[in-house]
């Protein structure tokens, strides 16, 4: 126990922005810490606002009793997905592994502390959602006063089970991958496959039980959320505990979380060293023969370096390339099943003319592709290798042009492919399809350049673990969240305007607006790069 406290305290201190602010003598770095705090506060406020708005929606529609379940579903889903994306970087393949494992810590102490570290770092996000929804619930449902302390207490417990499940899955993937020579590739493929499975799980379940239960149980939002509590028990326990409050539900949620924690980290700890040994070992073939060298332009050489950086890290690959892979899969599925069928499934057979969705196709794909621009994290990912680029006789702007070029290489083919698949399936006329393609490419350019602006402005080179800049960095958060919310709004706007305006005209206007934003972002990125 004492060992765990010492290690956990040090892990938290070693990534504490407050510690940097307190001890750093570099004014620029201290200013960046304040900037990070302000940026994070804005994001928390956004999340709180979104959660309260969701509660108001429930309250106004007389469904406020569904709020605890919905809060638990949102937190559990986010906790599961975010942990799954981070597990590889936090539990395995972390750079101070040698230092920690050579100290007298049990393997399960190291893994348990790494998990608790992940939990504490992500807790403010989950608390923002949960406590905001508790306030909304309090306003509309007027529950008994005892609900509030129970809700607050269980908000700390709720993310534990999904995080443990995600960590355990990450462990299983690492264990399977460690048996292969190309363990990095196997780990990436398995992780991606599982993420894709998660995204499509809802539709798979619906397809399996469509005929009997789903049509009936999904008649109302309230019933649907209640149903979720029966499928995933912790959600039901949470709802029961805060609505009752039911003591058995409180004890079940807390007890199972604790028990699962002990079991998972006993299992993980047992084979932790062997997995890490295998993952960190790089078999040397020593068969290289010098031949077939090619010359590339500087900008393409940088883009190629970025490609190798992406494919060389499971964490970066699963976070950076998942959007383009999902977009390609979405395009293929649409082409096979048909645009109408997909729309019917997503909108539950809502009666409307599907043609109005056609102008929104590039934005639907951009929702996936723009999820994360590699340019948002690649400046920070240089980390300790920053000196390499800095010491080479290359203009700073060229370095970032190369990074942007790589993101274009990565995103444009998938955007074009996705639009063609969806466009053909939706029978979009050729002139409109061409406009959609242009809009798609322009969106990629905007994502690339805007990501680069965020990446340079919030560059952080002193990270301990690459996940800190890939998943939690200020650059990525500031790029990702407004971008995601804006896209969702734009999809709605395109559908709305599509009913009133000609498709080509609407796409033309959007192309001009997005192109202007892309050019402005590009010039800003170059200007920031030039000043470095």
């Amino acid at each position, binding site marked *: 126990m004492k060992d765990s406290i010492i290690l956990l305290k040090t892990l938290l201190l070693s990534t504490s922005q407050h510690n940097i602010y307190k001890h750093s003598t570099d004014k620029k770095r201290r200013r960046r810490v304040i900037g990070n705090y302000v940026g994070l506060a804005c994001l928390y406020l956004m999340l709180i606002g979104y959660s309260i708005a969701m509660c108001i929606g429930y309250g106004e529609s007389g469904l406020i009793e569904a709020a605890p379940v919905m809060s638990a579903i949102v937190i559990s889903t986010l906790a599961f997905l975010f942990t799954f994306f981070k597990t590889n970087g936090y539990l395995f393949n972390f750079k101070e592994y040698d230092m920690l494992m050579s100290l007298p810590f049990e393997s399960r102490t190291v893994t348990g502390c790494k998990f608790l570290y992940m939990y504490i770092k992500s807790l403010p996000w989950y608390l923002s959602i949960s406590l905001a929804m508790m306030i909304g619930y309090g306003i509309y449902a007027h529950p008994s006063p005892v609900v509030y302390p129970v809700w607050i207490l269980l908000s700390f417990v709720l993310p534990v089970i999904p995080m443990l499940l995600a960590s355990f899955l990450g462990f299983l993937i690492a264990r399977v991958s460690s048996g292969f020579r190309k363990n990095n590739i196997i780990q990436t493929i398995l992780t991606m496959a599982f993420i894709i499975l998660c995204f499509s799980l809802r539709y798979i379940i619906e397809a399996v039980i469509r005929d009997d239960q789903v049509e009936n149980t999904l008649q109302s939002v309230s019933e649907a959320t209640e149903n979720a509590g029966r499928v995933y028990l912790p959600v039901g326990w949470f709802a029961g505990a805060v609505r009752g409050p039911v003591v058995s539900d409180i004890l079940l949620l807390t007890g199972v979380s604790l028990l699962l924690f002990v079991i998972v980290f006993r299992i993980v700890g047992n084979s932790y060293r*062997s997995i890490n040994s295998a993952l960190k070992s790089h078999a040397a073939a020593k068969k290289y023969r010098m031949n077939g060298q090619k010359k590339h332009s500087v900008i393409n050489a940088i883009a190629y370096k970025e490609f190798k950086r992406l494919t060389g890290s499971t964490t970066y690959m699963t976070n950076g390339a998942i959007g383009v892979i999902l977009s390609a899969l979405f395009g293929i599925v649409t082409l096979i099943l048909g645009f109408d069928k997909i729309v019917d499934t997503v909108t539950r057979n809502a009666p409307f003319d599907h043609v109005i969705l056609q102008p929104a196709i590039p934005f639907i794909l951009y929702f996936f592709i723009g999820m994360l621009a590699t340019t948002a994290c690649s400046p920070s990912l240089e980390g300790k290798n920053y000196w390499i680029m800095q010491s080479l006789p290359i203009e700073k702007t060229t370095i970032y042009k190369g990074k942007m070029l790589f993101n274009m290489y990565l995103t444009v083919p998938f955007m074009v492919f996705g639009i063609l698949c969806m466009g053909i399936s939706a029978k979009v006329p050729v002139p409109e399809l061409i406009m959609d393609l242009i809009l798609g490419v322009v969106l990629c350019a905007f994502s690339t350049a805007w990501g680069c602006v965020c990446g340079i402005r919030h560059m952080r080179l002193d990270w301990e673990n690459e996940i800190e800049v890939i998943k939690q960095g200020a650059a990525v958060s500031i790029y990702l969240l407004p971008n995601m919310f804006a896209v969702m709004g734009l999809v709605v706007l395109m559908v709305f305007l599509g009913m009133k305006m000609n498709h080509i005209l609407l796409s033309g206007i959007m192309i001009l607006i997005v192109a202007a934003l892309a050019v402005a972002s590009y010039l800003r990125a170059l200007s920031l790069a030039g000043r470095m």
Partner: protein
Amino acid sequence: MSTKAMLEIKNYSKTYGEGKKAVDDVSLTVESGDIYGFIGHNGAGKSTTIRAVVGVLDFTEGEILIDGHSVKDEEMECKRITAYIPDNPDLYENLTGIQYLNFIADVFDIDAAERETSIKKYADLFEITDSLGDMISSYSHGMKQKVAIISALIHKPRLLVLDEPFVGLDPKATFTLKEIMHEMCAQGTAIFFSTHVLDVAEKLCNKVAIIKHGRIIASGTMEELTEGHSLEETFMEADHEG
């Protein structure tokens, strides 16, 4: 002073993908009071051996004992008496030097007065006391190496394992470290370290092993091995024959 085996490596092998052996049937013994040099080319298997000794790298073939305890089965007993300094120490960059040293002192349960005395002693010796309040990220490679060395010394290990300890150290720090190694050795600590610097190994070590392509090609006391020649000549000869 009576000697006893502090580190025993028995028939240790490490295989990476496709059955290729990075280390093949390595056996050696380091006794208390020994300064044992482990020399070889880049990629010869030195770090793979050292990482297994300190419990970082898993292995299936052979046995490694520290003061009679098995690295595989009695991990904690081994780690409590061992200190390891890697060739390129990855310390927590966002801690200050003193925060990092306190972390290590906490791990080894060193009381406040004792840690203060030993941190001060070694920090003064390595002339780094003034910088202990600064972030490790602001340190040079040599300064990080010094912090790693101090962290290894403050808990008075009975086995000190160092991977290329002199890389990045300034001449004064190199001299200080050698003095400390002699002092520890006189007190009965066993020291096992890898190096490329043959002159240093020759002057510092009483025993040496030469590893090539994962196999020990020569080992023994310095006198037995060199037979009046320089270590460099011996190494080149063994390398040529091996």
